[in-house]
């Protein structure tokens, strides 16, 4: 079944894309900044969705793979003089290879133990950045990254970066959605549901588990590379374990293995995040500055943890299930069922 099936779907898709790509014409830089952030986060979240949601391999290291992408792209650009168009795929590839290395234990262990192995990677990779060859990476200080240049055009404003990031996000969504209905995607789902049974039916666990890790890290590396050239300054503490938990949270909120659901969840969670950062100063303005700062810092984790817990308990199938219900409602209207 194709992704876009009917003439109506085609018209809607083209309209939606036209609206999306005309957004920079009338939106301010701050809104575009938010959209770019969501776009980059969505790429990494969809990568994790392939690995955890689809293939069932729990990973607590997605932001470490983003760090690999970000740092390899930055180092290639700054120290090896790579042009951006070459640094982007090579950093994604490097990140993918690191993902395969980290994913190797998945052949022996699974579930909780695998989560621990990826947690170890999450602790070790930023440590390597801080402590090894600090003359290149800048250690725990920020590393400055040049603006991306393509065909002589420099992407320096949020408007121009929008046209770099969002097409890649759309491409990612399309590719992941497409992969899930292919032979590979079916194999991932079989591995998730029961890996022993899948192997009995002729699915090579070696191949598909490592492929899942590779693809997931390639998307994380792509997101990391874009992040580096979008932020223009990267440091190891941007890629900490909390970020990895956020990615897992997006998958839970979105619904495991659902591309649309995870896309919604990314927007939803990033929106909450931005609302909290914007409004917590006014909520806490009557307090002393130190207290207000702590309250603002505490509100984010509190709300986010609460959202995940509520979704786990009340709607384990995530936003994807709500979306299906909404679609069914409009399809069947005016009848209930």
């Amino acid at each position, binding site marked *: 079944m194709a992704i876009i099936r009917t003439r109506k779907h085609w018209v809607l898709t083209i309209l939606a894309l036209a609206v999306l790509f005309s957004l920079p014409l009338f939106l301010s830089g701050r809104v575009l900044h938010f959209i770019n952030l969501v776009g980059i986060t969505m790429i990494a979240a969809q990568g994790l969705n392939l690995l955890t949601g689809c293939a069932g391999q729990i990973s607590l290291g997605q932001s470490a793979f983003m760090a690999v992408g970000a740092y390899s792209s930055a180092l290639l650009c700054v120290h090896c003089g790579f042009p951006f168009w070459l640094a982007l795929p090579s950093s994604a590839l490097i990140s993918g290879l690191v993902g395969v290395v980290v994913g190797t234990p998945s052949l022996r262990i699974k579930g909780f133990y695998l989560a621990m192995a990826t947690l170890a990677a999450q602790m070790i990779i930023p440590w390597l950045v801080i402590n090894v060859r600090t003359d290149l990476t800048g250690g725990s200080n920020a590393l400055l990254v040049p603006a991306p240049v393509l065909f002589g055009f420099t992407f320096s404003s949020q408007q121009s970066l929008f046209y770099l990031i969002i097409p890649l996000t759309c491409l990612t969504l399309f590719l992941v959605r497409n992969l899930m209905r292919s032979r590979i995607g079916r194999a991932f789902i079989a591995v998730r549901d029961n890996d022993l049974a899948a192997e009995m039916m002729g699915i090579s666990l070696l191949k598909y588990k490592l492929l899942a890790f590779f693809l997931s890290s390639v998307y994380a590396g792509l997101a990391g590379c874009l992040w580096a050239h979008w932020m223009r300054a990267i440091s190891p503490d941007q890629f900490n374990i909390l970020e990895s938990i956020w990615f897992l949270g997006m998958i839970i909120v979105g619904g495991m293995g659902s591309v649309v659901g995870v896309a919604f969840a990314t927007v939803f969670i990033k929106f909450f995040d931005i609302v909290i950062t914007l409004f917590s100063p006014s909520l806490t303005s009557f307090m002393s500055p130190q207290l207000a700062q702590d309250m603002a810092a*505490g509100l984010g984790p*509190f709300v986010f943890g609460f959202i995940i817990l509520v979704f786990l308990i009340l709607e384990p199938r995530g936003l994807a299930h709500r979306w299906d219900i909404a679609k069914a409602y409009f399809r069947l209207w005016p009848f209930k069922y």
Partner: protein
Amino acid sequence: MLFLQFFLNGLLIGGLYALLALGIVLIYKATHVFNFALGEMLAVGAFLLYTFMFFAGLPAWIAIPLTIVSAMMLGLCVERVGLRPLLGQPILASIMATLSISLILRGITLFVWGSPTVSLQEKIMPTKAMRMGDLFLSNELIWTFVVSTVLFIFLLLFFRFTKTGLFMRATAEGHDVAQAAGINVERIFALTWGIAAVVAAAGGIMLGNRFGIGITTLPMMGIKAFPVVLLGGLESIPGAIIGGLMIGVLESLVSGFADPQLAEISPYIVLLLVLLIRPEGLFGLKRIERI
């Protein structure tokens, strides 16, 4: 001599790691949930003691029992709100539940106590170093080790000789079997979380006494218990002790003879090696899977 000094220091710190690991092993044994919220539970326990002693101005002998009671309540709350609705769900649900509880506790701690690291103005343990020949041993660490050992012995006796302890051991053997034998398994789960929270609070107080109480420092120490637990074996209390001592000694030796930066990461390298070579740990149970 230098070697012996580092070795003993590591051994003493290792006793504390073993206590932290116990907070995880107890819960895993009984409920098959891994407590990722341990670090934040440490911080909350330590902050509770700080509040009772310096905001309420209570003497230590009232403040410490009060902390134990409140930590118990915290454990019961966490189990009732976060874990019980997820009984029987897949493993990712329980991992995410404890992770989100750790985020919620972090948020609450920042709300109530703020981000600065505080220290107990009036130390609850003697601070001077003790001298034995050429060796210097921090009195604090010796006390920490003694308290950890006493807690360990107390818990082992509790499991061995009380009826509730027997129920808890039965629950660890198998949930269905225990339920069939008339044990209220849900109540045992709640109780386990309560005891583990008390153990975590004790660990948090001792860590806080030495390194200062803060939401940034204590959770990082809590994460160190994860390699200890996996090295010792997820279901094994003796494993937690031996794993804790081994990791403590290793960290101390690496920091003394190689590189303090490397010492920070060495527990995680051990964790990776354990997962690759012997995933069930030294004393854990090997799981055999059938379709």
